[in-house]
């Protein structure tokens, strides 16, 4: 693949598809969208297959100077690769999920999705600061339209909230970018990642980026746009929102905040930890009392993302790798959970939990998939959620036992709200006749759920496939931030020889001799 502009091609395919979708009827638009996303999936697989693990840090690099130092520069490392693969994997599923349920303005809808795919890939592949910014912010527009045009009854309020939160943060980030470009004299992201900004400046730059990424994550207390956006978005919108858009915040932290401002990151780690701890407990408890399925899963996303942020700022390999795997896992699992909600929403047109019940009787296969993703969401070992959560929490423990303790309560609360949800939907008697009459999965739904289930298990049982491409990049990052890393709170003190002997003596006192 040397020299072949595969990344540009991956941007071009959905863009061309999007343009085509404007000019054709509904059926053709669906077909074009599916074909384009599948083509991009194949390209993504080719990208993964030809990525040289242990090779150059940046691969598939493409550069073209445009004007005034502003360049078109693409290139990926292992971290970006994994997020691109996640994006192209979820897109065909999104298209399939909208196959029947979207009936109005199908062409525009498909175009919006294809455009978004292009922009998402662009975000992860961009190597120029401003190119990144354009992709990052423009990605909001199709999502904004998807919620605002094809959303539920309260879509205007939801899209307004989404827009307000995300745009406000990004203004600050843009200003920071200008300052950085001036100070460092380059807009090249790999160069900036090794550039040492003065400590005083780092503080302000970090805060400016934080404003944008915290909203995208979303972190408490700027999370309230997410539940509304999810509730109002169509199923596919929720999948892509939870699956990929939320990952942009985490990607931002790992690509910008940590390597570019390591001192400030260490300085503000307490802030991240505080917000993460609050978020895990707070949003988990809020999830417990939700009556709307999508809202419940949305709040659970906030709780999971809080574990990601805590782990990212743990300043160690386990935390960083755990955060990445948890992001990938959450992309699959919460996407799958929103799909599960969408499947029954298509049948009954309500997200009210109490309108369902006893689905394990009339939809046993559906109940099985739902169970799998529920278990993955609460981090059952053997599923992807466990690997991410376990490494994340292990990383956190190395830096702060309080952080680890509070965030680990998420495994208790998570089990509580997810199993409570599952019980109300799948268990019990069939109390609603219309819910009891719903047919089990059809072929299209099988085709969407099987790949998600397989990927979830794969990542849980053999995560090496996903860890290996990122290993060198995480190690690089760990070294880059290592000098600034705050000390852990464990302060292990090894015993003196006498103390050890005394302890052994104490252990064997009594009748043992």
């Amino acid at each position, binding site marked *: 693949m040397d020299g072949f502009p595969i990344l540009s091609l991956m941007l071009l395919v959905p863009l061309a598809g999007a343009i085509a979708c404007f000019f054709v009827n509904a059926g053709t638009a669906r077909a074009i969208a599916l074909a384009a996303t599948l083509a991009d999936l194949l390209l993504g697989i080719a990208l993964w297959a030809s990525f040289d693990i242990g090779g150059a840090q940046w691969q598939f690099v493409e550069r073209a100077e445009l004007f*005034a130092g502003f360049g078109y520069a693409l290139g990926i490392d292992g971290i970006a690769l994994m997020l691109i693969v996640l994006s192209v994997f979820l897109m065909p599923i999104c298209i399939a999920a909208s196959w029947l349920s979207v009936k109005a303005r199908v062409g525009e809808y498909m175009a919006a999705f294809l455009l978004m795919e292009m922009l998402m890939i662009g975000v992860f592949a961009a190597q120029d600061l*401003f190119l990144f910014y354009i992709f990052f*912010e423009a990605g909001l*527009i199709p999502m*904004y*339209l998807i919620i605002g*045009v094809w959303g539920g009854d309260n879509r*205007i309020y939801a*899209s*307004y909230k989404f827009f307000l939160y995300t745009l406000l943060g990004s203004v600050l980030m843009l200003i920071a970018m200008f300052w950085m470009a001036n100070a460092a004299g380059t807009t090249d992201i790999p160069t900036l990642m090794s550039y040492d900004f003065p400590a005083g400046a780092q503080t302000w730059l970090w805060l400016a980026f934080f404003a944008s990424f915290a909203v995208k994550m979303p972190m408490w*207390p700027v999370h*309230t*746009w997410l*539940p509304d956006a999810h509730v109002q978005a169509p199923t596919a919108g929720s999948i892509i929102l939870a699956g990929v858009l939320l990952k942009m915040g985490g990607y931002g932290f790992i690509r910008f905040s940590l390597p570019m401002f390591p001192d400030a990151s260490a300085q503000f780690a307490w802030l991240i930890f505080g917000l993460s701890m609050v978020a895990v407990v707070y949003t988990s*408890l809020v999830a*417990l009392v939700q009556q709307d399925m999508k809202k419940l899963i949305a709040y659970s996303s906030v709780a999971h993302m809080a574990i990601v942020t805590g782990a990212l700022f743990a300043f160690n*390999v*386990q935390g960083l790798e*755990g955060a990445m795997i948890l992001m990938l896992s959450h992309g699959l699992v919460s996407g799958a959970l929103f799909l599960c909600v969408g499947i029954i929403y298509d049948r009954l047109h309500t997200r009210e939990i109490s309108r369902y019940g006893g689905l*394990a009787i009339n939809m046993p296969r559906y109940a099985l998939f739902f169970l799998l993703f529920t*278990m993955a969401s609460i981090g*059952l*070992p*053997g599923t992807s959620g466990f690997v991410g959560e*376990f*490494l994340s*929490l*292990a990383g956190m*423990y*190395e830096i702060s*036992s309080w952080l*680890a*303790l509070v965030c680990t309560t998420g*495994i*208790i609360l998570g089990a*509580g709200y997810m*199993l409570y949800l599952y*019980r109300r939907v799948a*268990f*019990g008697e069939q109390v609603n006749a219309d819910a009891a009459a719903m047919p089990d999965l059809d072929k299209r739904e099988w085709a969407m759920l099987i790949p998600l289930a397989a990927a979830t298990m794969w990542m849980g*049982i*053999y*995560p*090496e496939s996903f*860890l290996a491409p990122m290993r060198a990049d995480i190690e690089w990052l760990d070294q880059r931030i290592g000098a600034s890393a705050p000390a852990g*709170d*464990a302060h*292990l003190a*090894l*015993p003196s020889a006498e*103390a*050890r002997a005394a*302890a052994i003596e104490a*252990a*064997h*006192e*009594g*009748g*043992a*001799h």
Partner: protein
Amino acid sequence: MSSISIIVFLPLLAAIVAGLGNRAIGSFAAKIVTTGALFVSCALSWPILLTYLGGDVDGTVVPVLNWVRSGGMVFDWALRVDTLTAVMLVVITTVSALVHLYSWGYMDEDPDQPRFFAYLSLFTFAMLMLVTANNLVQMFFGWEGVGLASYLLIGFWFRKPSASAAAIKAFVVNRVGDLGFMLGIFGTFLVFGTVSIPEILAAAPGMAGSSITFLGMRLDTMTILCLLLFIGAMGKSAQLGLHTWLPDAMEGPTPVSALIHAATMVTAGVFMVCRLSPMFEAAPIALAVVTVVGALTCIFAATVGTTQTDIKRVIAYSTCSQLGYMFFAAGVGAYGAAMFHLFTHAFFKALLFLGAGSVIHAMHHEQDMRYYGALRKRIPVTFWAMMAGTLAITGVGLYALHLGFAGFYSKDAILEAAFARGTEASYLAFALGIFAALLTSFYSWRLMFLTFWGKPRWSQSEHIQHAVHHGEHDPDDHNPARQEDAGHDPHALVVADDAAADGTAGYHPHESPIVMLIPLIVLSLGAVFAGGVFNHAFIDSEAFWNGSIFYNEGLIHALHETPMWVKYAPFVVMLIGLAIAWNNYIRNPAAPAGFVEKFGGVYTFLKNKWYFDELYNFLFVRPAFWLGRKFWKWGDVGFIDRFGPNGAARVVAGGSRLAAKVQSGYLYSYALIMLLGLVAAISWAIAR
């Protein structure tokens, strides 16, 4: 392919075939596949144990697959076999195979049999992964896997609200323990830089006396690590404080109770402490805590067991109590005795549960012992099997002859070890253990007398009434929602017809089919002989354990040298318990009522299980929901949104005007403005 791989993965394969095949392959095929797989696993497991009985056989590790390598944290899928594992293999596969077979009869009328058998096999696989783990994380995988299977099986009759509630409770309470387990693993990794069990155990003695900060407190490293891990063990093994899920777990079908909630899963905590015994030996304070918690659980559960009327709940509390014995055995350093009791208990407790299932089967799903009576002659095989189980659990045996039922050997070894250890905690454990032995004898014989002796009291049972009036096999039998109505309110029935005069209501209990009786007979043999046959190896043979657990030779020596009264005390209290039960339920059946009248407070306290459920509801469950609502309505909606986006909207445009402007028709123009603004800003900045 090594035999251990077959032992472990065959049940998984069977579970997948039966579970995914489900209705497509039908009940019979699912039963054949799963039961067949388990008998193969069982047949392969016994030779492994027999090899180890020879002594001085080293452990092996069969690598399976890489799992995670993240910086210094490396853990892989692998199957470790040593003496400790071999003991567990035999327990798990034997009981599981017999329970599979038993379920052919017990679940015969259930329409969801493939699902049931798939869950059983899945459970077995997870349990086997737990005991073959060579690192803490794979142990945690098995730990959570059995938790999942337990959740699914407790909630097997998912239509019943009490069953699905019990399933959630089991999972969530276990997760509280898992919090400790996970933190324990993290801490262990922090201290030792590895999660590999052999490496940790090798390094553990060197860490004794070191200190570490945890939650701002300066603590002894090994103590805090062991206590965190022990919290995990407390959850899985239903120790005092985290025991509340176990009685509710009786909502699951009875074979499940026998396999998971008596013989195998609940003993995982004991297994964990034994597996990590060199770690615990480096943490004397943690061992004292294990001893005290075990002893308190032992006595607590025994007291509650004396007042329960549901046959399965009596046995459930009995299990809880026996697990307490195992823990304080481990706590005093007698890991061999703990494992020995685990081993014998697996046989006689599975036997008691399956026997109870056979009684329930005979009595048309009635579980309340108050409506049993006089079943001795009606279901003789079940009766004799239960008798063997009761003799084993109460520890019948003669010290002078060195001859007794299984529990005699293991329980007496534990009590002697507790006495011989000679620390404050161990004396407490000894005293409580002796008292619990009295209670064990009492509640076990109470169960026997109420069920098999006296006059029939069947006519007061709703289930029996139902059977008599609607025929014994009416269509309702197939409605899973009605089966095993555990924990129901006392029945208030007025019986007027003649058949009721003798208390039988004209009902004819029937002995269980042969597939249910075979497991009872096999387990009876275990309950009778397992103690005598394996006593020497488990207690006295360091060569047998060969380093797989910490072997305290001094303690074992001291154990044999305890005074005579210590050796005879368990026997004497067993007789006292028997005598009280005989007096109260055979000689003078009015006596219990008199006791209840006299000591109403004590009775109510015990009957309500020391009010743990009410307390936890008040402390945790209701506050969680209350806080959730407040955070949502006050925090998110009332504060963040009000002063955040909604406030901004009011400031910017005056609320309603903005809402009026932002109609869907304007969306495109808004999007366009956003895009243009973006481009303009960048162009301006660059051109500047």
